[in-house]
C-alpha cells in the first residue's frame, strides 16, 4: 500500500523530493542528461530571432501554461472572441518567432488589438501565485509594447498610428481634435481666466485629451487646488508626455518628447509634477525612469491621491449635495496597473447626496473603456464596442451617472453613455461641483466628437 515501499526507495529520483532543497542527496544534480542542452542562438539569427531572444523565457512561461485564464478578462477578447487577439497569443507569436516560424511583418498587425489595460497580467496564475516570488510576473503589456517597437524599428507601420505620430511630432501634441489645430499656442487655453502662474516648484501636467478636448477636467483640478491653497504653476513649454508614442511603438519620438519635458522642468526649477491623467502617470512613473534612470529626480503626484489626502486632512470639504445615482469606473491604469482604487472611492464617499453603487475592483479587472493603448486610433469600432459593454454593466446597476478618473476613457464612455442614457462624469469635475466650484470648460461632446477616430487619414 505505501508508496515508498519497493525497490525504488534507494534511488533518489524514485522518492518524492523538492528540487533545490539543501538537504537533497547530491547524486540528484550529478545524473547525466540525455537531452537538455544550453540554449544557443541559431547561426545567423534572423532579426526576429534576435528580438525573441530577449523575450523567450517570458513568452515560453505563458506558452507553457497556455490555459488562457487571462482571456475572459481581456476587453478586446470579450468583444471580438478572436483567439489571435488574446494575451496568450501575443506570447505564442514570440515563441513562433523564436522557432523561426513567423516574422514581425506577419504578426505586427495583431498587436494593435490591445488596450494595455493589464487585466491579463493580474488574472494570470503566474503573476497571482508565484510571479513575484520568482521575480517573474507575466508582463504581457511590456511584450506588446516591445513587439510594437520592434515593428516600427523594422519599418512595419500601422497606417493610423503612423500618421497620428507624425502629426503629434509636427504639433508637439496629439491631434486629438482632428484637423482643428492643437499646438503649443493653445496648450494653456483650457485655463482661460484662472490666472495660473508658469513654472515653479510644482507644476500641473495636463494631457493632450484634457488640454484640448475635455477641458472641464483640468479646470476642475486647477480650481480645486486653488481652493485648497495648494501652490502650483503650469509648464512653460509643455509637449505631449510621449506615452502614446511609446505605447504605439514610436520609442524614439517618445524619448525625444520626454527629454524636452524634462529639460523644461529643469529650466523652471520644477521638482514636483501633479498628474491628473492615469496614462501620464504611467509615463512618468514607468517610462521616464526607464529613459533617464536616476537622472529623473522629479516627484510625481497623482491628483486623485492628493485630493483624497486633502479631504482626509480637512483641507477640502465637499458640501454641496450631488443628487445622482453613480457607479465608478476604475481606470485600467490606476486600478490594474498601479493598484490605485481606494482613493477615488474615498473621494466619492465624501460627496454628499450621491447614491454610490460600487463594483469591487477585482470585478473591474474585466472592465475597460477601450480608450487606451492606441486602440481608438487604429480601431475606433473596437473601442466603441468595449465602451458599450462597460456601459451595459453600469446600466445593470440602475445608475444615471458613470464616474471615471481618466480623460482618455471619458470620450468613448461618454459616447456609449449617450446610447444608454447614462452621463459620464470625471471624478475631479464631480468633486469640484460638490465644493461649490463653477467649473466651465468643455466636456467634449458635439464640438469635438468623433474627431479622434474620424480623422485618421
Amino acid at each position, binding site marked *: 500500500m505505501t*508508496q515508498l515501499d519497493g525497490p525504488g526507495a534507494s534511488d533518489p529520483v524514485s522518492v518524492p523530493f523538492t528540487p533545490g532543497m539543501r538537504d537533497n542527496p547530491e547524486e540528484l544534480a550529478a545524473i547525466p542528461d540525455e*537531452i537538455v542542452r544550453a540554449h544557443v542562438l541559431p547561426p545567423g539569427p534572423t532579426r526576429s530571432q534576435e528580438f525573441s531572444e530577449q523575450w523567450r523565457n517570458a513568452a515560453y512561461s505563458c*506558452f507553457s501554461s497556455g490555459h*488562457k*485564464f487571462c482571456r475572459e478578462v481581456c476587453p478586446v477578447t470579450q468583444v471580438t*472572441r478572436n483567439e489571435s487577439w488574446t494575451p496568450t497569443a501575443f506570447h505564442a507569436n514570440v515563441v513562433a518567432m523564436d522557432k523561426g516560424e513567423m516574422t514581425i511583418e*506577419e504578426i505586427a498587425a495583431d498587436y494593435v488589438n490591445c488596450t494595455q489595460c493589464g487585466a491579463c497580467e493580474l488574472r494570470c496564475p503566474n503573476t497571482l501565485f508565484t510571479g*513575484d516570488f520568482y521575480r517573474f510576473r507575466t508582463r504581457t503589456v511590456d511584450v506588446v509594447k516591445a513587439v510594437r517597437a520592434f515593428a516600427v524599428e523594422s519599418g512595419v507601420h500601422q497606417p493610423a498610428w503612423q500618421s497620428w505620430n507624425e502629426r503629434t511630432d509636427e504639433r508637439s501634441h496629439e491631434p486629438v481634435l482632428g484637423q482643428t489645430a492643437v499646438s503649443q499656442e493653445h496648450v494653456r487655453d483650457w485655463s482661460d481666466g484662472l490666472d495660473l502662474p508658469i513654472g515653479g516648484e510644482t507644476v500641473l501636467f495636463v494631457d493632450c485629451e484634457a488640454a484640448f478636448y475635455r477641458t472641464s477636467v483640468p479646470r476642475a483640478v486647477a480650481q480645486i487646488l486653488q481652493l485648497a491653497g495648494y501652490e502650483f504653476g503650469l509648464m512653460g513649454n509643455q509637449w505631449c508626455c510621449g506615452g502614446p508614442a511609446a505605447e504605439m511603438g514610436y520609442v524614439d519620438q517618445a524619448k525625444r518628447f520626454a527629454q524636452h519635458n524634462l529639460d523644461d522642468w529643469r529650466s523652471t526649477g520644477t521638482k514636483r509634477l501633479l498628474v491628473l491623467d492615469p496614462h501620464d502617470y504611467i509615463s512618468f512613473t514607468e517610462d521616464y525612469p526607464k529613459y533617464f534612470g536616476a537622472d529623473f529626480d522629479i516627484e510625481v503626484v497623482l491628483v486623485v491621491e492628493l485630493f483624497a489626502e486633502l479631504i482626509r486632512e480637512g483641507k477640502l470639504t465637499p458640501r454641496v449635495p450631488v443628487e445622482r445615482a453613480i457607479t465608478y469606473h476604475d481606470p485600467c491604469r490606476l486600478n490594474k496597473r498601479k493598484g490605485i482604487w481606494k482613493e477615488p472611492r474615498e473621494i466619492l464617499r465624501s460627496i454628499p447626496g450621491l447614491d454610490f453603487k460600487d463594483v469591487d475592483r477585482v470585478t473591474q479587472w474585466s472592465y475597460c473603456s477601450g480608450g487606451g493603448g492606441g486602440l481608438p486610433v487604429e480601431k475606433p469600432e473596437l473601442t466603441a464596442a468595449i465602451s458599450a459593454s462597460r456601459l451595459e454593466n453600469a446600466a445593470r446597476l440602475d445608475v444615471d451617472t458613470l464616474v471615471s478618473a481618466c480623460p482618455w476613457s471619458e470620450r468613448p464612455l461618454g459616447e456609449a453613455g449617450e446610447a444608454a442614457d447614462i452621463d459620464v462624469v470625471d471624478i475631479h469635475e464631480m468633486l469640484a461641483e460638490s465644493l461649490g466650484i463653477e467649473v466651465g470648460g468643455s466636456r467634449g461632446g458635439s464640438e469635438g466628437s468623433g474627431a479622434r477616430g474620424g480623422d485618421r487619414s
Partner: protein
Amino acid sequence: MTIAVERLDELVTALRTVLRDEQILTSKPDRYNRARVPAPFPVHRWSERLPDLAVLPTSTEEVAGVVRIANDLRVPVVPRDGGTGLTDGAVPLRGGIVVDVKRMNAIKELDLANRTVTVGTGINMLKLNEQLARHGLFYPDDPASYPCSLVGGRIGTSGWSLIGSRYGHTRDLVLSFDHVLPTGEVMHVGDGVGHKVSKSSSGYQLKHLFMGHQGTLGIATAATLKLFPKPEAELSPFWAFDNYDDAYACVGALARAGAATFAGAVLFDEWKVAYLRRDDEAYIPQPGDVRALVCAVMYGYEDEVRPAGKRLFRIAKEHGARYLGDEISQGDWAARHDRYATPLHGRTKAGQVVPMSWHCEDAAINYTDLPSVTKSWHEIVADLRRRTDVFDDWGMFAYTSGSTGVDYLTEIDVGIWEQQLDDRAWEMWVKAKRDLAAVALAHHGSISACHGSCREGEVDLVPDELGRGFDVMLDIKRALDPNNIMNPGKYLLDRAYEAGTRS
C-alpha cells in the same frame, strides 16, 4: 498536410457564400494560434499541425453551411472552442478548417420556472455564472479550467467537474443541444429529443454519443443546461496527514459517508505535497511533517452544510487528520483553478527554476486500485526523469468521480520543458503516455477519463480498452461521417475508412 492553393481559393470562395469576409481567417498567426492547446506538443514541429484557415461563425446555420461545404469539398473540419482541451482534440492533424465557435456565446433563454438556460456553446461557465448570480442560480460545471474552457468544449470532451459528486458532470448537466452532423444536417439531441427533459427512454440514448467525441461526430452549437440554486454555504476543509495510507483511507471514508451536500473529495499524494512545497514562501506553508493532503467540499444551505461538515470532520479525525485551518482551506479551494499550470514550478533535479508546461495524464480508477496505480505511475515518470530534466514530477491528485466513491479521477501531473523538446524527448514522452495508459487498463480503469484519450500515445490503447466496442465506434463514424471530414486522424478513427474494414 495543407491543401493546395487553388483548392484553398475554391474553399474560401465557397465559404463566402455563408460567412462574411471578416469571419474567415487565413493569416499565419490566425492559423498558428489555433493549432495548439495547453497540453505540450512537439513545438519544434508546430508547422505540421496548422489548419488551412479558421472560421468564426455566429449561428447554427453558419456552422451547418461551413460543414456542408467542407463535406462537399472533402476538407477536414476541426471544432474548436476554448482551446483548453488537453488531448490535442482541437488541434488539426490534417489541415482543413478550424471552426472556432467562441463567437456563439449568447444567453438565448433563461427559464426560471424550469430552471434551465439555453446558451451558445461558445460561452464560458464563469461568465455564464456572473449573469446567473443575479437570479440566485448557478451552473455547476466546475472543471479546474472553469475560467477558460467553454460549454462547447465541455460537450466535445464530456468533461469532468470538480463538484460532480453533488451536481453531476457535464453529461448530466447538459440537457440537450443543437448539433451539426458531419454532413451539415442539423439535429437536436437530448435524452429522447426533448429540449428541457432530463429523462426519456424513447429510442436509443443518443445524447451520450454526441458528447465526448472530441469533435469527430460534429459540432454542438446551442445547449440547454440544468441550473441549481447558487449555494448559500460552501465548506472546503483541507486536512494534513503524516502518511499517504491514512489520507487514502480517509478520502474513501469521506466519500462513502454519503452526506447529501458532499460535492467532492480530493487526495494529494506525497509527490504533490513536495511539489506544493516548492512555493512554500510564495504561497502556503507546508510543514515537513505533512506528507499527504485531503480536501472535501460541501455545498448547500447553511443548515444542511453545517451538520454534514461536523460528520466529515469527525470521520477525518478518526483517520488521523490535522485540520489546516479556515484560512488555508478557503484560500486553497478558492485557488483550485489557478494552482494548476503555473509553469515556474518547473525545476531541474538540481533545483534550477525553468518554465515548464503542465501536462496531465489521467484515468478513472476504482478506489481500491488507487495506491497501486499511483505507485506505478510515479515509477514511469521517475524513469523519464532519470534520463533527462525535460520532465519533472508534479505529483498526483485523485478526485471522487461519483457520489459513492466507487472510482476516482486519478491524475499525474508532469512538467515538460518545452524549450528543450526535440524528436527524441517527444518519443520518450509518447512512450511514457502509452505506459501510463497500460497501467490504467491493467487495473480495469478507463484511460484518460475526462480529457478524452484521442492523443498520440494513449490513443493506441483505446481499441484494447473498448474491445468490440471500438468496432462499433468505427461503424458509427463511417455511417455518420461518410467522407471522414470531422476531425480526421483522431481516436484512430481513420481505421473506419481503411480497405478491409467491415462495412
